[in-house]
């Protein structure tokens, strides 16, 4: 097409562009809207899941017929979905609802991811029970038992991937499991003071993190030592770089949204540290030190996922409750963190003592907001 008119159109087209600032501004706006879209989507999907579960139960699990009659006639599925250990519907949730959903997963990766999701869910239940002061030794036992089952299943899927010589998938699943444990470990560590039953779960989670991380390193070593010419390891490194960059960008977008609770919370500094790690990894990648580069990328991915997770799951009420509990312990006062009737956090005055809300006088700035201080980032990977 050498037509003069068309060439002119092309020339004009080439002269129209976004400035760097405009492109950055547009990116920030899009990232901040992505979060709103996801939240909206999650709410919609939650409603759909409940409907789907209601439709399937009676046909697929006849042995639970009696229970299901109750469940279906009373809207119990929805109740089971949100039930926690100690609730009669919890058994239906873990033995029926969750298993039924798993039946429809076809690929090994989907099945493994489903189990990883359930690992996270069990740990979230631990947190909910602890915050409601209902994490009894029995409830913890139930959760730990389930946690073990899901973890074992993920490990089986990882083993199957290895046996199929799909090392890349095996490593990916290990990383996902490690991240799921790490994120929840951070959250649970923050509420250890709330319930003494949390600590054993945290200890278990830490053991799992260490075990998965070790197994992942072995596989990555095998991959690089076994076949240095193989491009697999470099492809994995590049994939990890992309993933780390993306999650960091999303986390940065969330940090920069200007939400007052997160101002001065140290997240900006942490994002900068994550970026530095990515840069170090990129240099190693250029040098062909894929193994070391992957360690930096994985670390960045974990840390940026953690920031993202903490911001997305920030719960003001929970932060208040943990703050009150910690303050109570610190001052050696009797437990008064929550009003026993409602479970609502009390207002705390500047000295840390609880204040009767009815006595609160207008104009007194008494409300404490507990900012979720992110835990210090872990030190660089060993050997670097």
């Amino acid at each position, binding site marked *: 097409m050498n037509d003069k008119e068309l060439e002119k159109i092309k020339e004009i087209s080439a002269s129209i562009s976004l400035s760097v600032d405009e492109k950055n501004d*547009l990116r920030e706006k899009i990232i901040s809207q992505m979060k709103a*879209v*996801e939240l909206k989507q999650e709410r919609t999907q939650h409603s759909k899941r409940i409907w789907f579960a209601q439709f399937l139960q009676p046909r697929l699990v006849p042995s639970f017929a009696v229970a299901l009659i109750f469940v279906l006639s009373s809207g119990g599925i929805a109740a089971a979905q949100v039930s926690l250990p100690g609730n009669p519907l919890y058994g239906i949730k873990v033995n029926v609802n969750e298993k039924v959903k798993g039946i429809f997963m076809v690929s090994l990766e989907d099945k493994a991811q489903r189990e990883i999701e359930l690992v996270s869910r069990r740990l979230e239940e631990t947190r909910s029970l602890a915050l409601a002061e209902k994490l009894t030794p029995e409830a913890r036992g139930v959760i730990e038992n389930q946690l073990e089952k899901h973890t074992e299943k993920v490990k089986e899927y990882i083993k199957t991937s290895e046996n199929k010589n799909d090392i890349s998938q095996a490593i990916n699943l290990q990383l996902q499991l490690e991240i799921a444990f790490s994120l929840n470990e951070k959250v649970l560590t923050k509420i250890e003071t709330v319930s003494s039953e949390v600590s054993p779960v945290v200890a278990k989670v830490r053991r799992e993190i260490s075990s998965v991380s070790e197994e992942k390193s072995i596989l990555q070593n095998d991959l690089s030592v076994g076949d240095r010419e193989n491009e697999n390891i470099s492809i994995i490194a590049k994939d990890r770089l992309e993933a780390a960059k993306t999650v960091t960008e999303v986390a940065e977008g969330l940090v920069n949204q200007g939400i007052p609770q997160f101002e001065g919370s140290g997240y900006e500094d942490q994002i900068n540290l994550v970026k530095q790690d990515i840069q170090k990894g990129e240099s190693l990648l250029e040098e062909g030190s894929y193994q070391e580069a992957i360690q930096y990328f994985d670390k960045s991915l974990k840390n940026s996922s953690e920031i993202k997770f903490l911001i997305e799951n920030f719960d003001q009420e929970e932060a208040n409750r943990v703050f009150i509990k910690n303050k109570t312990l610190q001052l050696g006062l009797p437990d008064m963190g929550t009003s026993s009737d409602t479970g609502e956090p009390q207002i705390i005055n500047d000295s840390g003592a609880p204040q009767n809300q009815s006595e609160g006088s207008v104009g007194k700035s008494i409300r404490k907001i507990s900012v979720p201080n992110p835990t210090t980032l872990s030190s660089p990977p060993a050997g670097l």
Partner: protein
Amino acid sequence: MEPFEKTKKEQEFMKAYENLAEPIFRHCFFRVSDREKAKDLAQETFVKTWEYMVSGKEILNLKTFLYKVASNLIIDHYRKHKNVSLDALTEDGFDKASGEEGADIFADAEYSQVMRVLKDLDEQHQEIIIWRYVDGLIPSEIANLLGVTENLVSVRLNRAIKKLKEKLRI
């Protein structure tokens, strides 16, 4: 959506943003002749696309999908702003605000004439010329966007070029 699947989608989406923000903006700019409006439309295009992605639906070709969304949004824009006619836009010419590099090109009478004529074409012809010569889409991509065969795209493109030349001769 599973967490890792979500991360993969975020990765794919952000990569698409880096590569296609500029072309999508340019496409919108050519269609609405307003720099700020074009930026808004580009933003909405990416947000709508993300909305579709997180709903779990599959997108076979993200690039053509983005163009399709942009195109639909532009049509909606004109439906909502019926008072702003294409004629008025043609008279006003392009929004040259911001003093961006290359703005001088609009001072050239020949270029202005080409752009006026382009905007004077019917929507279908205008769109196909912009896709091909502004966005640089290949016929198979345009065929994908329009849901027609590549042959039909070639036919429509030839007709559009013919129309453009006819109008330039008037």
